[in-house]
């Protein structure tokens, strides 16, 4: 979706302002949100792609001004309500109204280390051969889906070169919406800054994005 998350090339946000003394968390509730988000994912109700889409679907003005863990928290509430685990009134009152649906899939503390160390690889096998080869000129498709996609707006319609053929990966556009993993070949495509941002751009800039096969067409 052309939502608030698609920030590449947007302007007006001011300086980056890195704080060398910054700590990882800014208030004690932030690490709890991190932990709950990771732990609740283990219930298996939603994919990583669905959770990203829940975040980018928050009201744009809020997405742009909230601290990042607030974004995670609000999206977690959306996901828990959507999948019938925690209703908005339960979350607001701290009073349980109905039993949980999947307590049997609770992430035990003893399993955290192994679950985090294993992660969630998204590489899959696929019978279909890759359509593009390294060095191919390709155009990023000019598409504007209302659902989740990982093709940023700033490359759509622009011409780049395949830098690497990676592997088949789970397709977020399908996997975010209950469409299954629908794996497709993933490519790293490099665009010149001038192709992306116009002739005035620094000629010494190039940008690489990782793009699924359906995001690309021959150019």
């Amino acid at each position: 979706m052309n939502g608030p998350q698609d920030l590449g090339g947007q302007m007006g946000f001011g300086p980056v302002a890195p704080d060398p003394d910054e700590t990882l968390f800014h208030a004690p509730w932030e690490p709890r949100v991190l932990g709950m988000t990771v732990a609740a994912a283990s219930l298996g109700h939603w994919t990583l792609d669905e959770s990203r889409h829940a975040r980018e679907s928050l009201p744009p003005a809020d997405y742009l001004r909230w601290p990042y863990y607030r974004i995670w928290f609000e999206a977690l509430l959306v996901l828990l309500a959507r999948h019938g685990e925690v209703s908005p009134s339960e979350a607001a009152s701290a009073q349980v109204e109905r039993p949980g649906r999947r307590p049997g899939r609770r992430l035990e503390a003893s399993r955290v280390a192994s679950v985090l160390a294993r992660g969630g690889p998204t590489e899959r096998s696929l019978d279909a051969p890759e359509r593009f080869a390294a060095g191919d000129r390709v155009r990023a498709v000019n598409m504007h889906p209302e659902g989740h996609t990982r093709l940023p707006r700033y490359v759509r319609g622009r011409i780049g070169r395949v830098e690497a053929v990676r592997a088949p990966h789970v397709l977020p556009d399908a996997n975010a919406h209950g469409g299954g993993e629908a794996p497709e070949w993933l490519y790293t495509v490099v665009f010149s800054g001038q192709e992306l941002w116009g002739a005035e751009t620094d000629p010494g800039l190039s940008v690489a994005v990782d793009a699924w096969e359906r995001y690309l067409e021959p150019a």
Partner: protein
Amino acid sequence: MHDLSDDDTETMTARVRALETVLVEKGLVEPAAIDEIIATYSERVGPKLGAGVVARAWSEPDFASRLAADATAAVAEMGISGRQGEHLNAVFNTGMRHNLVVCTLCSCYPWSVLGLPPTWYKSPPYRARAVRDPRGVLAEFGLSVAPETEIRVWDSTAELRYLVIPERPEGTEGWSAEALAACVSRDAMIGTGLAVRP
């Protein structure tokens, strides 16, 4: 943007506690699991791991080759693996090219080698500008890259995660792995810094 007023802190503290209470009472989340997740990324998984990878790449050309060919496998030799590092790629700075990593669409970051991202990495100013005006962004980090050096920005749009291998500082010949690792900041492995002698 990231300053919370005290009111907000109070409200968020209460809301987050309420949700945790419900999740725990329903048997959906174990508080000790939350603690363990937090401890993992506060104490055990962080940029020290990445710095060790970089130091080894500087010292062992064979390891550097394996890292370039398959970073996921190469860091696994060092016992490093996991969430948000399942498909790792190492990109090497040279005199010809400086690498910079961003995730314009959310906050993708190589947790397995760098831990959790800093706030600025997840925030609109960096995500918006890194792909369009990286030299301007680097200047805000006090970094000036020579005009003739290409800047390659890696936008983490899929599940590949990028680790920048900075150039080895001059005058570090023969240094131990520990001493070399101490030259490698988190920012150097994102591309918003360089490796420097401490």
